[in-house]
């Protein structure tokens, strides 16, 4: 097995510029005559707008315009899937942070000072801040459609009979918390009106094509009038999927009104208090099994707190719904997922897309089953998990590589030295524990989003043999561009140094859908390979002629040198072949395209083909819990991932490190303090994310590389899998340490102390 990956061991293409301070993020860019935008927002989450008097503010120094719902130069109704949001509130506030007015000024400070002069009167109205309470018929209705705005199901087999004949029933109610993305660079956009009535939008984003579509809709112009440049993006993790559209629309509105470039940068506090979050979920799980520990059925009720606007919550819930059974082949399944409006901050995509929450639950339940029937926690997973014999995912489809789950368990057990830690030492109030979490991840978009499952790459051979590559998937910091460069170089047989790739410009490549769902490597990579496949035969043909070889099939390019397979003494360089291509005036450019195979799926039953293919992953975590303070110290983690094929070894390690530590943050320290829907701890001194002192001493990792035929060079995807099962492994470890079942995330000191007290 090649442990080093497909890459050539070079640092990623953007690292040097970033390490020397030369990389330009959106706030580092400026334009002549540029104004600064500011968002004036609601401090309340549920209120009637009674008065919004901007007269005084308008007269303040440096103010160019103030926009409200009354004078917005574009369509005020916005939304990703449902148009349930207003860019500027016209009468009813549904969420704290809802925008009331937009200000453009010479400086940021002037805009902020003017905002203080706005005369605002809000009449607070009764809100609902708990997704289960929102189900009650007497709860305030957030939107006319009712609070449950979407449901998803999985129905397989017959749960009634299972219930009757089961020896063991385990029923629990779980409360899984949300999470703030906490990308280090906040949201921001610059909108620049052009002389020909077109627009340039600069944005920190993972989905520039979303912005293009929404800005054009907002202004009522065609999409070819909007060109979006993704700026170097300072982290995203899902938080820059749909949300950047909002700053983009704000900047565009102000630029339209003033005719000048406008920059909108979110201050950290407002970013935290208004942007989308990982969904909190309440999940009831009922598991039916035999005395031997064989699971016969599961019943789940998943209540997803979507917050005040739909955003992409339905898409997240769709993944939670189908992933909730986990990597187990269970014959009888009944899952109902409700997506529920409340007056909380609205949920959105976040690394794992609903899967981490359900993974925490299905794993806690199977742990409990292990304890109930007296089996080891890995053993119980072996019995119920996917294998060569047990091949069926929750959707009823047979997986192509179900045996990899067993390999995953073997690796996790071995690398973590699982058995040696099962009877950990306990010294007074310090208790050690080891835990496991596993997961199954459908790579790419769910059936429900398959229309977006496409990707494009534009490859140009320049006449000096260098290559200009543009791909429609974004590098948001995760290293997608490095992966694209590696794939392109490997497919052509040349040095990575010959390839130039940078952030997305929507005018360069067709709409490639969103860069989400760990699909960058897959969809971008396949598009790159397709582009190469369109050019390579031409090059091979020329090379064959230059090498006096009759059959182009007999030549190959390795390390930038063409030779024939039989006669290796004669060579011609890649550069020379490209030069010849130009001399013959043959088209040196190609657009590569990828789309996933169309799939069939029944949303009523959740049966069919949900995803293009699947990846397994798992974590083992060792902890030490202080039972007095409730503080958890993570001693060691072990991550194993089924990745098909490693493209960039350094990149994949970085994803696993980052995903693990971010997962530990979610599981142990990151907690929202919400007061009537308003985030009270919006800032890094109160909303704590892991620092270098919090990370475990040891992070082990290993990969399973069995190529997946649909992926580029067999690769799958790693961005989200790296995170998903961390939370589950932490619950498992803390439960083991305390010898009790925990049913809540995050396991903050307070939650742990409370659980211990309740258990006594």
């Amino acid at each position, binding site marked *: 097995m090649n442990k080093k990956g497909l890459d050539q061991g070079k*640092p*990623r293409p*953007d*690292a*040097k*510029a*970033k*390490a*020397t*301070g*030369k*990389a*330009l*993020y959106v*706030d*580092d860019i400026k334009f002549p005559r540029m104004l600064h935008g500011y968002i004036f927002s609601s401090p309340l989450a549920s209120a009637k707008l009674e008065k919004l008097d901007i007269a005084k503010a308008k007269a303040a120094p440096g103010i160019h315009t103030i926009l409200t719902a009354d004078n917005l130069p574009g369509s005020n109704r916005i939304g990703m899937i449902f148009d349930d949001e207003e860019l500027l509130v016209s009468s009813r506030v549904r969420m704290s942070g809802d925008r009331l007015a937009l200000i453009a000024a010479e400086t940021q*400070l002037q805009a902020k000072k003017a905002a203080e002069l706005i005369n605002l009167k809000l009449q607070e109205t009764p809100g609902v801040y708990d997704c289960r309470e929102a189900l009650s018929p007497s709860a305030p209705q957030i939107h006319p459609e009712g609070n449950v705005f979407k449901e998803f199901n999985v129905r397989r087999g017959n749960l009634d009979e299972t219930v009757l004949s089961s020896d063991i029933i385990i029923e629990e109610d779980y409360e899984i918390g949300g999470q703030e*993305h*906490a*990308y*280090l*660079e*906040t949201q921001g956009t610059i909108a620049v009106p052009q002389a020909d009535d077109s627009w340039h939008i600069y944005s920190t984003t993972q989905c520039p094509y979303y912005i293009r579509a929404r800005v054009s809709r907002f202004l009522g112009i065609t999409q070819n009038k909007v060109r979006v440049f993704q700026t*170097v*993006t*300072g*982290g*995203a*993790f899902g938080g820059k999927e749909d949300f950047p559209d909002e700053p983009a629309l704000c900047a565009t509105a102000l630029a339209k009104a003033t005719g000048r470039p406008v920059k909108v940068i979110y*201050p*950290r506090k407002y970013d935290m208090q208004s942007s989308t979050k990982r969904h909190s979920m309440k999940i009831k799980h009922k598991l039916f099994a035999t005395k031997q520990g064989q699971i016969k059925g599961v019943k789940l009720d998943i209540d997803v707190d979507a917050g005040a606007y739909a955003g992409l919550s339905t898409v997240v819930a769709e993944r939670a719904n189908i992933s909730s059974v986990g990597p187990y082949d269970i014959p009888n399944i009944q899952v109902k997922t409700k997506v529920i409006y409340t007056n909380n901050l609205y949920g959105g995509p976040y690394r794992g897309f609903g899967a981490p929450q359900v993974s925490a639950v299905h794993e806690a339940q199977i742990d409990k089953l292990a304890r109930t029937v007296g089996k080891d926690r890995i053993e119980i997973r072996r019995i119920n998990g996917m294998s060569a014999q047990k091949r069926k995912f929750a959707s009823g489809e047979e997986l192509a590589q179900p045996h990899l789950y067993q390999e995953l368990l073997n690796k996790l057990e071995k690398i973590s030295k699982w058995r040696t830690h099962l009877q950990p030492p306990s010294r007074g109030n310090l208790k050690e524990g080891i835990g496991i979490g596993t997961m199954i991840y459908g790579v790419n978009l769910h059936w429900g989003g398959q229309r977006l499952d496409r990707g494009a790459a534009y490859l140009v051979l320049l006449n000096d043999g260098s290559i200009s590559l543009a791909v429609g998937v974004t590098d*948001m*910091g*995760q*290293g997608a561009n490095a992966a694209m460069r590696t794939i392109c170089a490997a497919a052509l047989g040349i040095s990575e140094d010959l390839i130039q790739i940078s952030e997305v410009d929507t005018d360069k490549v067709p709409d490639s859908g969103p860069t989400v769902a760990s699909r960058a490597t897959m969809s971008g990579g396949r598009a790159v390979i397709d582009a190469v496949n369109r050019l390579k035969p031409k090059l091979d043909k020329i090379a064959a002629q230059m090498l006096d070889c009759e059959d182009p099939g007999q030549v190959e390019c390795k390390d930038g040198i063409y030779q024939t397979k039989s006669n290796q003494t004669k060579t011609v360089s890649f550069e020379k072949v490209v030069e010849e291509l130009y001399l013959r005036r043959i088209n040196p450019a190609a657009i590569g395209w990828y789309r996933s195979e169309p799939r069939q799926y029944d949303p009523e039953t959740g049966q069919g083909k949900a995803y293009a293919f699947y990846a397994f992953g798992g974590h083992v975590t060792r902890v030490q819990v202080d039972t007095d303070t409730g503080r958890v110290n993570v001693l060691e983690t072990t991550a194993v991932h089924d990745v098909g094929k490693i493209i960039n070894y*350094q*990149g994949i*390690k*970085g994803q696993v*490190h*980052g*995903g*693990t*530590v*971010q997962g530990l943050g979610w599981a142990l320290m990151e907690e929202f303090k919400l007061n009537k829907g308003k985030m009270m701890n919006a*800032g*890094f*001194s109160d909303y704590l*994310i*892991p*620092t*270098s*002192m919090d*990370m475990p001493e040891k*992070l082990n990792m290993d990969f399973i590389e069995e190529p997946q035929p649909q992926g580029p060079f067999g690769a799958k995807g790693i961005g989200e899998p790296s995170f998903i099962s961390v939370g589950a492994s932490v619950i498992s470890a803390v439960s083991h340490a305390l010898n009790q079942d925990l049913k809540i995330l995050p396991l903050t000191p307070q939650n742990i102390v409370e659980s211990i007290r309740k258990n006594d």
Partner: protein
Amino acid sequence: MIKVSLTVNGKKHEKETAPDTSLLDFLRSIGVKSVKKGCGKGECGACGVIMDGVYCKSCIVLAIQANGTEIKTVESLGNAQNPHPLQTSFVDEGAVQCGYCIPSMLLAAKNMLDKNPEPDEKEIRKSLDGNLCRCTGYVKQIAAVKKAAKIMRENKNDQ
């Protein structure tokens, strides 16, 4: 408005600014863009500079307090042609992902290494404690500092 004059990486700058302007905003207003804003409240560590030899978060220093000082930013370490060992090891070790935290983190590490050329892992972790990074899990950054420290010691011995 008040006049603030200071030196950034050896170059003198002078500009009128509002008295409550932070050093961070001041630096960015004179075109020093490698100093990043992640919070503006002293909580994230993205805005670090070395002021008269002391590493500090420039968002919680007033520009006027920095009057007459000598500021060093990541550009003072090195550039693409002639990088500092810390920059080289961050790049080679894969310690850079989105990069937003990096310029400041490099300065924090440099500051520590100036005082403690042979830090152990704990000391490295401690020196980066005030620099949040959401992407990397810190693993490679700690490794990169370790590696740079070694290179710097060797370079010194060679001299």
